[in-house]
């Protein structure tokens, strides 16, 4: 079976003005300098030739790269659909207009909360007011706006307010993205995971809101896999539809694949993107179903969820080839459940009390 990639996630930099403790960037950064403009232009061109249709410019904060508009224009020239995935810090009127003129198709802005105080506390910097300004600017320029709010125990209690906030801002799409526990988030998971009751409440609010706003604002809410019985169909299968190029040029089957110790990633400075996609060890290691152990190998859902997430298996079981412990059939399920149980009592219902964040490790920037 030949797979072709649909989406390139272009992580232009690991630099970011925000310090969110749930960041999925690696908690220890890869060595090596950032790719040059010429490198990225070549990568984008190669991706288009391979059949990639979408490019997501991400990071870190992609606006930290002064060549962002040039790369957007290169992607549009190559026929790709371009999406900016941003904190919006640095999105000045001049910059936004430059991006529109470059052909940028859509913008996704992250918010940490509907309120400045909580939002700024989570971001570890005064960001909320600037984000609001940027979101209005984006809508004013006619971009379709997606708002992404990463949910965790400190803001999930404000779901109704967050939904109203996104609607008032004019978002066409709202991603209520439960924290995925990789990178900084995994490090902080004991201080981030919501309680069972919080999740149940959020599910009720989200399904009601989906109906209420249908046709006006699309709302996405997926129950976090720590609370589900079936694993997520991670990346729609390893090396099947998706590739990430990180700031130093390593090509990864998923943005967090660096969590898997012993997996070596090839770099666009020494190989073509197409060679890496079809031939590299990293992309072939968990492609298809041959690598699967039981219970996945003989499972009727093996082509539906692909055994779940390799990074999660690596982080929780130590074995990236194991069944994802988010699956009720995983022999390691107990490891996940005992962690989830251990979190229930530490979650207070009153939201973020003063000093509540003291247990969190806030994301730091890579060395300059």
């Amino acid at each position, binding site marked *: 079976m030949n797979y072709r990639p649909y989406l390139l996630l272009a992580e232009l930099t690991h630099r970011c003005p925000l310090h969110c403790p749930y960041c999925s960037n690696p908690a220890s950064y890869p060595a090596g300098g950032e790719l040059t403009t010429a490198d990225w232009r070549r990568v984008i061109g190669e991706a288009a030739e391979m059949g990639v249709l979408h490019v997501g410019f991400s990071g870190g904060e992609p606006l930290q790269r002064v060549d962002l508009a040039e790369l957007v224009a290169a992607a549009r020239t190559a026929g790709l*659909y371009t999406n900016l995935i941003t904190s919006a810090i640095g999105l000045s009127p001049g910059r936004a207009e430059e991006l529109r003129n470059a052909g940028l198709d859509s913008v996704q802005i992250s918010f940490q909360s509907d309120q400045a105080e909580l939002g700024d506390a989570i971001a570890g910097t005064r960001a909320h007011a600037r984000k609001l300004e940027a979101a209005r600017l984006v809508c004013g320029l006619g*971009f379709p706006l997606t708002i992404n709010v990463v949910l965790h125990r400190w803001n999930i209690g404000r779901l109704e307010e967050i939904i109203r906030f996104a609607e008032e801002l004019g978002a066409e799409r709202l991603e209520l993205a439960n924290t995925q526990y990789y990178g900084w988030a995994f490090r902080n998971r004991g201080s981030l995971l919501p309680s069972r009751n919080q999740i149940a409440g959020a599910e009720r609010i989200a399904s009601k809101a989906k109906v209420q706003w249908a046709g006006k604002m699309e709302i996405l809410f997926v129950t976090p896999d720590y609370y589900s019985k079936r694993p997520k169909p991670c990346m729609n299968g390893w090396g099947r539809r998706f590739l990430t190029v990180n700031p130093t040029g390593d090509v990864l089957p998923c943005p967090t694949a660096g969590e898997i110790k012993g997996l070596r990633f090839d770099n666009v400075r020494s190989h073509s993107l197409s060679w890496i996609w079809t031939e590299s060890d990293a992309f072939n290691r968990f492609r298809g179903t041959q690598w699967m152990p039981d219970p996945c190998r003989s499972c009727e859902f093996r082509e539906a969820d692909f055994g779940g997430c390799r990074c999660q298996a690596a982080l929780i079981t130590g074995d990236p080839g194991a069944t994802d412990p988010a699956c009720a059939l995983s022999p390691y399920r107990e490891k996940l459940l005992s962690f989830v149980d251990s979190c229930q009592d530490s979650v207070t219902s009153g939201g973020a009390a003063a000093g509540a964040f003291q247990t969190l490790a806030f994301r730091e920037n890579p060395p300059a």
Partner: protein
Amino acid sequence: MPVIDERSRPVLARGTRLAMDKATGQPVLLFPEGVVHLSPTAHAILSRCDAESSVQAIVAALSQEYEASETELKADVLQCLEELCARKLLILV
């Protein structure tokens, strides 16, 4: 959801556009976080959705180009437009 009839004037929603899939040589519709693979017929319909042409005008143009009966075409066109409207990829003006 708005009802589509002969006088509706459809246009692709903001952030949605037609493109060519280089891997298959077939047309696709791209939008934030998604893709719809299009049949040649669907592509022919959508490339005429310019906010100016009515459904009736689109059916007439296709009928002439493909030498097909308007009655048959109209059912196909309406079905295609209704599906995409339901997904908010197309709007009516």
